[in-house]
């Protein structure tokens, strides 16, 4: 049992540490407004610039998400907004190109689905937790039943001696 625990520790500890380093899976999918096909899986802000499909969206953009809020990324890459958290579901994102006086010069919109799925980190945490608990249960209950058998023998010997 000790060996199993040592092996388990050495196998799962690195996985557990690895799990700590894994970020949450990308949750945004961008769907083409024309045919509904997925056109991008990454809509995110890297550093201070908004990226759609891994390319800087515009030098200066205002992004509005219906029902959630809006933020602006200026020419210097500063993001002018609070953190936005999209609820799970389908969202329409409007992207405005802004000129220096903050007037919209063009506009486009995309549909976004925030999808809930199990990330690698999630799997690692779940497997680690399950296996730790199962291992603890196997260790404790095998011992309980094992010791019970041994203890049945001991008193019998003493009784026999008394007789």
């Amino acid at each position, binding site marked *: 049992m000790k060996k199993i625990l040592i092996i388990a520790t050495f196998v799962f500890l690195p996985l557990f540490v690895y799990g700590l380093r894994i970020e949450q899976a990308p949750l945004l999918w961008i769907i083409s407004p024309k045919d509904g096909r997925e056109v991008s899986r990454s809509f995110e802000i890297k550093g201070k610039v908004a990226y759609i499909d891994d390319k800087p969206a515009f030098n200066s953009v205002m992004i509005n998400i219906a029902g959630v809020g809006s933020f602006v990324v200026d020419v210097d890459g500063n993001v002018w907004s609070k953190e936005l958290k999209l609820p799970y579901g389908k969202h329409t994102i409007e992207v405005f190109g802004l000129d220096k006086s903050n007037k919209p010069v063009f506009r486009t919109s995309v549909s976004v689905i925030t999808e809930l799925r199990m990330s690698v*980190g999630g799997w690692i945490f779940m497997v680690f937790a399950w296996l730790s608990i199962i291992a603890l249960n196997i260790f404790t209950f095998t011992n309980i039943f094992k010791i019970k058998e041994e203890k049945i023998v001991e008193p019998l010997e003493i009784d026999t001696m008394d007789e």
Partner: protein
Amino acid sequence: MAKKRENWASKIGVVLAVAGSAVGLGNFLRFPGVAAANGGGAFLIPYFIAFIFLGIPLAWIEWTLGRYGGQFEHGSAPGILNAVVRKPWAKYLGSLGIFGPLFINFYYIFVESWLLGYVWYAISGTLANASGAFPTMGEFFSQYITLQIQIMGIPAALFFFIITLILNFAIVFFGVKRGIERASRIMMPILVVLGLIMLVRVLTLPNISQGLGFLWNPDFSKLLDINVWFAASGQIFFTLSVGIGAILTYSSYVKKNQDIALSSLSANAANEFLEVIIGGTIVIPAAIVMMGAGQAESIANAGTFNLGFITMPMIFGMLPFAMFFQIVWFLLLFIGGVTSSISLLQPGISFCEDELNMNRRQSIGVLFFVFLIMGLFSVYGLGAGVVDEMDFWAGNFSLILFGTIMAVIFSWVLGVDKGWKEMNRGGDIKIPVIFKFIMKYITPTYLIVLLILWVALSGWNTITMKGIESSPFKPLDSPNITAIIGDIKNPQTQNAHTIRNNVSSETLLLIDNYSDTVKTSHNQQILKLNELYTIRGEEFITEDYTARFMEIINIENVPAEQLENLEALKNRQFRKVFGETYRYKTTYERTISAVLADLSALITKEDFYLDNAFDKAGFSGDTLRLIERYKDDNLDKADIHKLNRFIIADTFGENLSSMPQAEFLGFTVNQKRFISFMRIGFLILLLIINIIIGLFWKKNKLDLKLQKEDA
């Protein structure tokens, strides 16, 4: 003390009994909600840290103290602590170990009885019919707990409470070996099998990884939040049943040289299996798969009772073999509840038998009477906050305090060296030496910090009843709601005018269309509904009823999907009240609920006072004092909400109460005053327990005996 105390018949018996004590509603309903709201997978980091440094050591401590006390023929906390500390005052500290389990059980058996009731309604098919929609399921639950659903001419909640109470006492009547141990040996395997059935069912749902993702995807930013660490420690504390006094009593029946080290660890392991693996997989993942990821946040934050009694029956209602899974689910929870509640009964019985020299029949008789009275107090006082108060003082405060006391006594009064020796006597495993250090320094410090944090983060506000005046308006707060509707419709004062300007357009439409005809139509519809109730007898929810419900909604031309799009529903307070009162079906009732919801939404507006011009002449002294403090920038959020509530209440005079009202035994009472009286009552009961302890100790000259033994 001459009578021989019982012992457990087997080691597996005591392990299953203690595991049964720990496994309860918290494993299946509380854990997944707390984990999902506090970082998902990342929550497991503070959770396991608390398990190792708090849960496991404290369980070992409690087992050790209990077995030690049992050698001196004591099975309840006063006797055990007295035997350990060997000072007369210690027995009074032990009164918390009687108070806690008694008061938790006063309401726990009532809640447990809901599960039995739901098993019955699942078998009869009523639940399958009701679980078609949130409003019907919510209404069923609401009517069940407010004693409106009848069975054999008495309220169903009362009927099942009495049955559950008798069942619990029937088990403990047969004693530790033939009652509790035998019941645990039967019920715990059944519990595991039922849990595994549910686990397999949920894991085979399509897209289950979505649901698992919501629960397990780690959000590491949450680890920087002190509340998350506090929540994890609290969950470990409650789930392992430590600090209550139940383990203390159970382990007092363990033989002197019988192992406790492995037994305690085994019970904890079994509890974790049922909590993390089974409990963590069923509720939240199933709810998200069946109801959609968009509902994830609201499901996770729905609260234990909503999850268990409204969301889950609905989810199982959507599956094939709905009735079967509803029965399995509620049976699973009911068995978990029974194994816990019998463990909470035993400290009281042991106190009567070991300290008061009663025989089993007498102690069962006395306690059954006490439980019947206090249980009925819970049954009839649920709406007035009786259960919440008992849960707060016994299920939270007393638990953490008594756990801290035991840890300090073990490590610093008995002495960790002596305690360690006692703990390892007869041990089937050798506890790692590091735990000696953990028990001496880390666990007591952890507990003291937890106690302080608990008081600072949540306890103090509840103790001082802070925020109670900022709670939303309920129908009970308004003895004459039609007068308020009239005031808003035709405002006669400046303040009423201001309120009208702040009411949402949807509600204003209802108010402006309000007339006597609306009330007449309401009365007619109520008559129709009553006819329906009469036809259906005690069967509450049926397909006919659901159809009728939908028909009424359509008659009123307010379909449910339209309601969900209302602008006002974005306000959380509004949603809460509206959700609670949505079950009202007629325009009259909907107008009332909309008015109350709108007024409640105004309470939460931070700048309500600043944004409007009010005539102060109509304000009471309390309101004016709050305004003065507001000017000095001396009000926190709860105070601002209180001010808003006072302003609104002052506007409508005696037609709207500034202080929240509650119903108790058919009377409307001031909730704050009622809670104050209840607390005085609890204190008196604690005092009575201490007087009984003092008197019987004196009568049996136990302190003198102790002195002689020491000499």
